[in-house]
């Protein structure tokens, strides 16, 4: 998820950035071969498409299922193109339309997205008047932050565990009551400060049990959208915000 969101941000290497999806790959191929969108040489494009998928697999890029669906569609169109056109079928639609229509729509929206991106964006090209007021944290958009995936959160947690104690944590269970009261505690902190770094939350937790309880509380709060867990694009620091 986050891979797609982060797009141009630096810290995440995302091989899939080459092509966001099967539609992008198709657009790329049509463009690269300089063929007419309305007269696509389907055999050539289908063949090249499969080559790309093979290459992605070789490079250990996780090829999503929708790439394969598109490959099947292309193969199907190709086979239909090979069938001899019979008299009574002449007014039948060009099988390629199955792919041309969505491509057309997709391209149109890509143009639209480009147009939007070229407008004078607030906070980027134009600015409104600055105020020296302390902005409220609730609802304020932390623009330098991106959402964190569960895996990144677990990485951060592992770092904390290692720092606090090298032992294993496996046989500690957290009871519901302490998780609930920890949730309230975190909510209190957030109410006062608006946001807190992930690490700060664990600073005063001496025992393994407390650390686990805190982590579970954070997970639960994130799951129920009481909080938002974001990562600073540049520093990589994970910060927790009021939902």
């Amino acid at each position, binding site marked *: 998820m986050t891979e*797609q969101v982060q797009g141009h*941000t630096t810290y995440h290497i995302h091989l899939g950035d080459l092509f*966001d999806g099967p539609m992008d790959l198709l*657009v790329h191929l049509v463009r690269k071969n300089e063929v007419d969108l309305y007269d696509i040489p389907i055999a050539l494009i289908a063949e090249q498409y499969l080559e790309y998928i093979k290459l992605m697999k070789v490079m250990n890029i996780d090829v999503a299922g929708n790439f394969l669906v598109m490959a099947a569609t292309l193969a199907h169109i190709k086979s239909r193109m090979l069938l001899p056109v019979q008299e009574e079928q002449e007014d039948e639609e060009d099988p390629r339309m199955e792919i041309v229509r969505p491509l057309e729509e997709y391209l149109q929206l890509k*143009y639209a997205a480009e147009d*939007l991106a070229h407008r004078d964006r607030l*906070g980027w*090209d*134009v600015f409104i008047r600055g105020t020296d007021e302390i902005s409220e944290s609730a609802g304020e958009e932390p623009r330098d932050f991106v959402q964190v995936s569960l895996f990144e959160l677990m990485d951060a947690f592992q770092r904390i565990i290692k720092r606090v104690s090298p032992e294993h944590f496996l046989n500690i269970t957290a009871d519901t009551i302490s998780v609930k009261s920890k949730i309230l505690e975190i909510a209190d902190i957030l109410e006062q400060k608006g946001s807190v770094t992930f690490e700060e939350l664990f600073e005063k937790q001496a025992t393994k049990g407390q650390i686990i309880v805190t982590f579970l509380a954070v997970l639960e709060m994130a799951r129920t959208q009481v909080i938002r867990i974001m990562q600073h694009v540049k520093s990589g620091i994970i910060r927790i915000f009021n939902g």
Partner: protein
Amino acid sequence: MDNLKAIIESLLFVAESPLSVDKIKSILEVEDRKTIRSALARLAEEYESEKRGFFLSEVAGGYQVRTRPEYRNWTRRIKQTRPARLSRAAMETVAIIAYKQPVLRSDIEHLRGVDSGGILRTLLEWGIIRVLGRKDLPGRPMVYGTNKRFLELFDLKDLGDLPLLKDLQDLGEAWPNDST
């Protein structure tokens, strides 16, 4: 109120979001929309003719003073926090929602050909899009649309201000720059 124009200007300076004529009307407790409109028009004109560092933008159903885009390289330096760059995927998703709203996640994903849940969540967080409601379909899927913030962000008066979708047949060889 003989200095109506200056008062409106001071309101525009203080406001944190675009001010509609109605809003100005209710604050000033005047009856006449026309006077407000003409004061706004004069302000806009003055900012132009005097080559001020800002201009009056008609955006998101209201008026807002904004710095000139041609000075972006300077104004950006004042702002220490840079806004997150919207990724290409995010821009595409926003465009789809803007043009196709009300739209289902499944429609978006069908168009883009990829899972878009993560991007939708981010766009929701940023307040660019919102959930308009739920569709009366199995699973009651959520219906998405753009938010007022979308208009503000992309300098649009209203949704009617969105450029028409291009006719691809007319474009010939022109491809979107960022298509690969």
